[in-house]
């Protein structure tokens, strides 16, 4: 990333903040919590105090309008420490879905409570085993909302759920329901990366409890939000991949076998050099996508799919190699390396696997 002075300062502040307040030991402490709890509330309130929720929000809505490169910086630093927080579910997905699909009145009604940390929200998008935003069965039938959603991030701690669903008119829409509304049941689980997500069932949620977003172009607003979140998640993944590669290279520089440092072996050097090439290649795609968001570039779908497919492949490679190159230590629960491995596989499924994005890329180009 190429950062201006303000962004570089932000990076420094954020890195220091996460290192102090959210080291990986904090993530580990979630293992003992109830499945509904996906992040530490105290940490989240400090992130709110630093202004993270308003980072990309336009000034007209009292945001910082600091841009997506700024948000990408925060996401990367969060990725380095494997921070669990509602940054993706509430700040990136929910807030932007509201901004992209809501009317002005709806934005001014719901956004302030999200930005102030008074409440968090999440987006219910996936249905079934894989990410596939084109297949949505949840629908408004005879005035009530029905259906099931899966991999809804941080649902157990969210006050609001934005459901992607079919409206009575047959058009794709966004239904805002409170998580406490009648007919909403949430079944949380802790995924292996220690984050929390849920399957949600809506059984006849009454029309009175549903707010359909009524912005200018809801269908393209949904797609835009998905692209924004895909790019932000890719940035987070690049932070994690960079961290785990650095840890691995450092380990090889310390560990001795056969009376020499492991890092002197060419076979291992070449594997690390290969990983570093892949890392910077993917980083370049992610960085280009963040820049494009800041300039409202038209081909954002292509850039988002490129960024995510490259980030998936790169983080998968590096986290697997990291375990192998740490030898026996790599498979112990004591080392953090395994957490990077697990996080990478969860991230692969969030917002689209590499197969999904390669298929979408081909569709967008037309082959």
């Amino acid at each position: 990333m190429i950062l201006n002075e303000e962004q570089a300062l932000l990076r420094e502040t954020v890195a220091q903040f996460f290192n102090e307040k959210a080291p990986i030991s904090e993530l580990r402490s979630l293992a003992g919590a109830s499945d509904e709890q996906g992040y530490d509330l105290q940490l989240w309130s400090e992130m709110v105090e630093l202004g993270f929720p308003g980072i990309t929000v336009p000034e007209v809505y009292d945001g910082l309008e600091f841009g997506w490169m700024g948000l990408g910086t925060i996401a990367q630093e969060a990725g380095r420490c494997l921070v669990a927080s509602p940054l993706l579910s509430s700040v990136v997905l929910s807030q932007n879905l509201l901004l992209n699909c809501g009317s002005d009145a709806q934005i001014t009604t719901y956004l302030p409570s999200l930005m102030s940390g008074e409440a968090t929200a999440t987006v219910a998008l996936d249905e079934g085993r894989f990410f596939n935003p084109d297949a949505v069965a949840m629908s408004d039938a005879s005035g009530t909302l029905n259906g099931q959603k899966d991999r809804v991030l941080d649902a157990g701690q969210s006050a609001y759920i934005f459901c992607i669903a079919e409206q009575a008119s047959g058009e794709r829409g966004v239904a805002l329901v409170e998580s406490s509304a009648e007919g909403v049941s949430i079944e949380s689980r802790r995924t292996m990366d220690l984050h929390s997500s849920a399957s949600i069932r809506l059984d006849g949620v009454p029309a009175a409890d549903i707010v359909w977003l009524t912005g200018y172009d809801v269908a393209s607003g949904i797609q835009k939000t998905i692209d924004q979140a895909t790019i932000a998640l890719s940035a987070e993944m690049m932070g994690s991949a960079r961290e785990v590669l650095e840890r691995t290279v450092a380990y090889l520089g310390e560990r001795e076998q056969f009376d020499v440092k492991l890092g002197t072996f060419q076979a291992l050097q070449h594997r690390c050099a290969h990983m570093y090439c892949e890392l910077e290649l993917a980083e370049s795609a992610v960085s280009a996508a963040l820049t494009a968001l800041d300039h409202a570039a038209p081909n954002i779908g292509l850039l988002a799919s490129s960024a995510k497919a490259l980030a998936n492949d790169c983080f998968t490679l590096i986290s697997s190699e990291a375990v192998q190159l740490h030898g026996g230590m790599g498979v112990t629960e004591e080392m953090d390396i395994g957490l990077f491995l697990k996080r990478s596989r969860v991230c692969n499924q969030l917002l689209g696997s590499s197969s999904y994005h390669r298929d979408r890329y081909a569709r967008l180009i037309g082959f």
Partner: protein
Amino acid sequence: MSQPESHPLSKEALAEFRADVANWLEANCPLSQRQPIVREEQIWGGRRRVFPSSDAQQWFEACRDRGFTAPEWPVEYGGAGLDPEEAKVLKQEMTRLGCRPPLYCQGLWMLGPALLVYGNEAQKREHLTAICRGEIRWAQGYSEPSAGSDLANLKTKAEDCGDHFLVNGTKIWTTKADEADWIFCLVRTSDVTPKQAGISFLLIDMATEGVSTSPIPLISGESEFCQTFFDNVKVPKTNLVGELNGGWAVAKELLKHERKMMSAFEGMLEKPAMELLELADYAVGSDAQGRLNDAELRSDMSRHLMREAALGQLGERIYWQGKAKQVDPRLPLLMKHLGTSEAQAKDELILRALGDEGLSMEDPNVSPGLRKMVKQWAFNKSLTIAGGTSEVQLNIIAKRALGMPSGEGKS
């Protein structure tokens, strides 16, 4: 360089220069010389040069007489004496009009810039002028059968015989040596260690008795490369460039310029017969939704296109880091390995897509454009070998970008 101290030109002077150059190019570059260049029509100069057309000759001679074959070299050596800003304007205007490079020559890209730094006055006068005027074609004599990636291991010996060196040995991968007039060589003049400290840089006229050369047929059916043999070749001592045993420094200077000059010509080459997507659709066909019939090929093509785009984005990142003075010196180290591997990945996709039509380089029933792609696939296997193998690149990345400790072999 014996150029006056650089004094930044005023905007007005530069604009005037641009207008002047644009007019001159309009007047002197025939329309046929504003088409993308094909390999057969490149002008390489030399004692045996032939011009592909009278237009090409006219364009070459106009540039030669104005010093535009080597715009930044001093006028007294046959260049145009332009400062870097002016040279940039000339390049921009030539690109805008699509003018072909007037002269291709290893002397221009590699030897010349090194001579400007390390050559003595007599060498500059003799050789630089002949290069600019396209009179002498140069070949490069670096690698040897036993000195590839380990270049410093070279064995071609130059023995001190008073007024001349007696050269014995052989050079390999000497590009187009069978068409070259002179060759610049790295030769061993001492057996000291480290091996780099016993190497000298020598200019050899290939018409001298004892020099012979033979082409090396490649797996692509072409033979751009040769092996050149030196059998008791007498080389005057005045042909030594730089210090005796100081050839390694000259060689390094020369490599610095190679990439820079070559990149100036990139993008001016003829487009391939078909772009990848068009070719895949032609060869494997698509379904009603426009999806390629081969699902795995389609997915692999997506992967390749994404990586190719990311390579461009990496290049832009490096460029903007330079502009913003936030240079990450590790990034340029990655370009050669990543770029050449991805070029080969593309060739493999082409070959897969072509199916039956990709199985012969000579079949007259296959269009010449497609056959050229198959030859390219074979030829491009050299990309990850020439100019520093991928393995050497990975060594460099591990040590210089990742700071991994030295051990085992040295490179």
